[in-house]
């Protein structure tokens, strides 16, 4: 249970990345399935080769940054459909990842996995202090991820961050105010995949190995985290949203943990994850969990929602429209 909590918090880093593309940029990015493993592979290879684990983790994130930028360039400059651009990068990364892990394997140029069991990792100080898998360990990880969340909040509140938000909301409009939406799109995809890859690096070190297939289906884990978290906590403000997606990542891990408890096999987890996402998509249609943001509205830039325009763009708001920030301190119960 504490292990699931710790892992969930670590996966919060990934959820923040998916939030940036999926929610802020309005771009379902499938690159993450590949870039997550890339981050893990780079970090594992570097650690195996004797590099400092913190540097290895950052380098893993850096590799994800590049992967995201590739998808961004394919989509914007190459005018390739966003889903396809992500798939292309993701598939290409499979080969790249095998090679990256191969650099740490003697007598081979490719490797499908790298063990990290005896190596020093970013968690070694925690483990040595006896904190890992205790509530104190949970607290340390939580504080670290919350610091990252605050950085995301700050970033989105800057002039550049606002331009990115506008890119996702109404691209032609923000172009008419002088922003290169190609630039903001590439940048956001890069940052997002940087987060996802850094998360891959952290997960590999936590579980003690990197594996070529560890990223498969990750996009659904990301979506499940974003949707679940925002369904429970809302998305009225950015700081609520970013907290919600980290919370969603933890919630997801706990659901998986209990699903295994009741006898499901780890092999069933992909099915459970897909079912979770489907449920989260369908429940609002049936009137449950009205707060769940509508995913089906994606595509149109200014999606005509089911509701009249008066409250269309703020699907998470239960309060009457027009309620302002100051009057809703309890937002996100």
């Amino acid at each position, binding site marked *: 249970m504490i292990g699931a909590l710790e892992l969930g918090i670590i996966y919060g880093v990934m959820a923040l990345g998916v939030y940036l593309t999926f929610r802020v940029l309005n771009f379902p990015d499938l690159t993450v399935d590949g870039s997550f493993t890339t981050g893990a592979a780079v970090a594992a290879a570097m650690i195996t080769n004797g590099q400092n684990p913190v540097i290895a983790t950052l380098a893993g994130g850096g590799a994800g940054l590049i992967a995201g930028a590739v998808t961004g360039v394919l989509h914007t400059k190459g005018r390739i459909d966003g889903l396809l651009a992500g798939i292309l990068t993701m598939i290409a990364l499979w080969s790249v990842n095998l090679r990256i892990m191969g650099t740490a394997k003697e007598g081979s140029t490719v490797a499908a996995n790298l063990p990290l069991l005896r190596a020093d990792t970013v968690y070694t100080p925690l483990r040595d202090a006896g904190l890992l898998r205790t509530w104190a360990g949970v607290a340390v990880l939580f504080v670290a991820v919350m610091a990252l969340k605050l950085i995301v909040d700050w*970033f989105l*509140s*800057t*002039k*550049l*961050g*606002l*331009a990115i*938000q*506008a890119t996702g*909301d*109404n691209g*032609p*409009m*923000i*172009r*008419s*105010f*002088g*922003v*290169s*939406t190609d630039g903001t799109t590439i940048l956001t995809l890069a940052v997002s995949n940087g987060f996802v890859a850094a998360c891959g690096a952290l997960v590999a070190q936590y579980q003690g190995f990197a594996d070529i297939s560890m990223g498969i289906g990750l996009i659904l884990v990301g979506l499940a985290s974003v949707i679940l978290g925002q369904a429970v906590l809302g998305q009225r403000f950015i700081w609520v949203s970013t907290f919600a997606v980290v919370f969603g990542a933890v919630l997801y891990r706990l659901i998986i943990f209990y699903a295994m408890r009741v006898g499901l096999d780890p092999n069933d987890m992909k099915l459970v994850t897909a079912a979770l996402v489907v449920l989260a998509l369908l429940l609002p249609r049936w009137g449950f969990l009205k707060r769940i943001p509508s995913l089906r509205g994606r595509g149109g830039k*200014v999606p005509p929602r089911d509701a009249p*325009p*008066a*409250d*269309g*763009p*703020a699907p998470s708001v239960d309060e009457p*429209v*027009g309620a*302002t*920030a100051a009057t809703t301190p309890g937002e996100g119960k």
Partner: protein
Amino acid sequence: MLVIDSLFKTFFPGSVNERRALVDVSLTLEEGDFVTVIGSNGAGKSTLLNAVSGRYTADAGTISIDNRTVNRLKEHRRARYIGRVFQDPMAGTAPNLTIEQNLALAERRGLSRGLGPSLGAKRRERFRTELRALELGLEDRLSAKVGLLSGGQRQALSLLMAGFTKPRILLLDEHTAALDPQRAALVAHLTETIVAQGRLTTLMVTHNMEQALALGNRLVMMHEGRIVFEASADEKKKLTVPLLLDEFAKIKGATFDDRALLN
């Protein structure tokens, strides 16, 4: 100021769907000119505005702003000089961002957008002052999402945003067409005020002849991709709707005659 010289634009050239949207269009706007553009559906009015703003690239011809040829500048680069309001009230604002965020975006037209804060007390104060001038009560709703506003309110805000930084050129494409008469009148009035205050050089497309006559100092009529009628400042003062309709009928007849001759 704005010089459009022999602009051509053909969609789907060489195919059965070929559409000659702009044919040898030349038009010069002096500093402070406010030109209204009328013409039938498909005359090429929107294409002209899109070519000026850089959304479409012209096939031939040049566009220059302040003696600088901008043909090669991408849309977002030209945006430094050009403010736009579209027909669709949804098009000019970001619905999921707040009023103040939208204004903050508009305020940075053509400037770099770095990691400084996008909002602050000073900016909010300025936004409030500017919004007050719209007389829609929006100054008290700075943190409301723009998607909650009515079409007319959004269009008024779009107009304010487009003119916020006093761009060299303001392009308005039937920006009152989607509004009910009362709101349309309000937005038309605001247009006059904003253009006058900023002494903006303006190109405004409209289907409403009365509006085309009431606003601006010059008028052009387009038909089948060409400018077929121009009224200078003096001529425009004397124009009336029946005179315009007459002119329009004449032109239709003329092009018909031309074709008859060619055949």
